[in-house]
């Protein structure tokens, strides 16, 4: 029987591109345009303005949100404000204007800011982590899926860090992988279809400002329109007359009535989350509520003071974006390019291995 050498596949050789011979001095046909990192970004995001603006691939109902807000506010300023300025005070359009500006700007910031996306691991990093995972389990001859969690003690609480198979990293605490955007997001709160983006560490304060100012705006418009209709229907005219005189107010009333409850509810819920330093994700999963009857479970990230929690979430330092959208892709090593290219050497090695196995089998048989 032939004695074939079976070379174990070296994960480092897999990860780093096959050692190429020194590049032959080929004449350069034309200088390749240096690509920016956003052009090779592996997640499901779209970029505008040469990488300055980031949006999720599915923008959800963001146009609807914007449309409703602009339409309702527009109708308010056009149809209700003149009457109210005449009969009440000129402050009304000013307050409405300020609230409207707050709402629109914070909405756009929530939608177009990087929520705290963690860039995926470079091939060397991924290989290093694989090595660390494989080592404790001993020999890799019988394939057993290695344990993909790491435990860490934070503030006397045991926190499990899960391994993300897409990004090839152990997720930091409070980080979660959003399947819609295909990214790991730090301090992941939720993916909001109304703003068309994930809400995470970097844009939570914009989101909170948005919902709070929107609840004020909705309540304000609702109050003003009700006052307007009440004033018009005075003097024996009746509500029907008032509605006929100002039909736009009816539309505003309906929109505001149905949205004010849900938005106020959402603001209240998020105020509670801010005060206890929780994320929607943790609250829904009940990570710290001690569901299993363990009384010692508590939120390890909370400062146990409402004011300190609020300040740290809303007034804390603004972390930088980690994905460096406008940086240039380095041309010397190809490690920053999209995962498709990284998978190819693995596939090639697999087919080689298959061929070797087949050859070996045939040689054994005959």
């Amino acid at each position, binding site marked *: 029987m032939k004695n074939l050498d079976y070379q174990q596949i070296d994960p480092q050789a897999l990860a780093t591109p096959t050692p190429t011979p020194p590049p032959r001095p080929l004449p350069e046909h034309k200088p390749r345009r240096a690509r920016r990192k956003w052009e090779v970004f592996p997640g499901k995001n779209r970029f505008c303005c040469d990488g300055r603006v980031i949006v999720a691939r599915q923008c959800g109902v963001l146009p609807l949100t914007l449309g409703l807000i602009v339409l309702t506010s527009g109708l308010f300023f056009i149809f209700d404000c003149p009457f109210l300025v005449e009969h009440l005070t000129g402050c009304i359009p000013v307050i409405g204007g300020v609230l409207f500006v707050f709402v629109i700007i914070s909405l756009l910031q929530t939608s177009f800011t990087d929520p705290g996306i963690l860039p995926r691991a470079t091939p060397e990093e991924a290989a290093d982590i694989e090595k660390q995972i494989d080592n404790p389990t001993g020999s890799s001859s019988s394939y057993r899926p290695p344990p993909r969690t790491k435990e860490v003690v934070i503030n006397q609480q045991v926190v499990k860090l899960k391994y993300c198979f897409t990004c090839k990293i152990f997720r930091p605490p409070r980080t979660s992988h959003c399947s819609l955007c295909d990214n790991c997001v730090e301090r992941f709160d939720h993916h909001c279809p109304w703003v068309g983006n994930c809400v995470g560490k970097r844009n939570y304060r914009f989101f909170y400002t948005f919902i709070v100012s929107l609840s004020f705006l909705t309540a304000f418009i609702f109050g003003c329109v009700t006052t307007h209709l009440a004033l018009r229907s005075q003097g024996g005219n009746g509500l029907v007359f008032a509605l006929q005189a100002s039909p736009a107010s009816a539309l505003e009333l309906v929109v505001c009535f149905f949205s004010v409850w849900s938005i106020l509810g959402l603001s209240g819920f998020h105020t509670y989350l801010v005060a206890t330093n929780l994320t929607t994700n943790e609250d829904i999963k009940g990570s710290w509520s001690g569901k299993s009857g363990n009384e010692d479970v508590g939120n390890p990230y909370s400062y146990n003071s409402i004011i300190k929690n609020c300040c*740290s979430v*809303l007034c*804390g330092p603004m972390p930088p974006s980690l994905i460096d959208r406008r940086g240039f892709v380095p041309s010397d090593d190809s490690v920053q390019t999209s995962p498709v290219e990284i998978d190819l050497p693995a596939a090639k090695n697999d087919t080689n291995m298959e061929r070797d196995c087949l050859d070996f089998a045939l040689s054994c048989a005959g």
Partner: protein
Amino acid sequence: MATEFHNLQELRHSASLANKVFIQRDYTDGTVCKFQTKFPSELDSRIERTLFEDTVKTLNNYYAEAEKIGGQSYLEGCLACLTVYLIFLCIETRYEKVLKKISRYIQEQNEKVYAPRGLLITDPIERGMRVIEISVYEDRGSSGSSSGSSTTSSSGR
């Protein structure tokens, strides 16, 4: 096998990358940015333990300063809230200022301490603040050395 390099350029041109060592994050204090100070065994023969620990501790201090929640960050936060966060488009935040200090520090450490020993530190911000990547270089002249990489190729005897 002390490989002597005099500056970073010489390192890059006359050395080949042998291995990369990754210093992972230390999450015991929560989500603040902090790196483990455990000395990796691959660097045992390359650099003194104290120098390495000093570098990591200084970096940790810088990150703690950037993420500190105190008077200045509250002021910045409240001012930003009043201007609907448009102020972030105009001024440089404290975090960004500290990040610049960090990259200057890393550059200086590379030039003075690490490059002469055939090592190179990559700024963690380029790796998403997940790891401190230390590249280990080998002099191209000494091709026979195993360079401490842990390949497990079991070729025939």
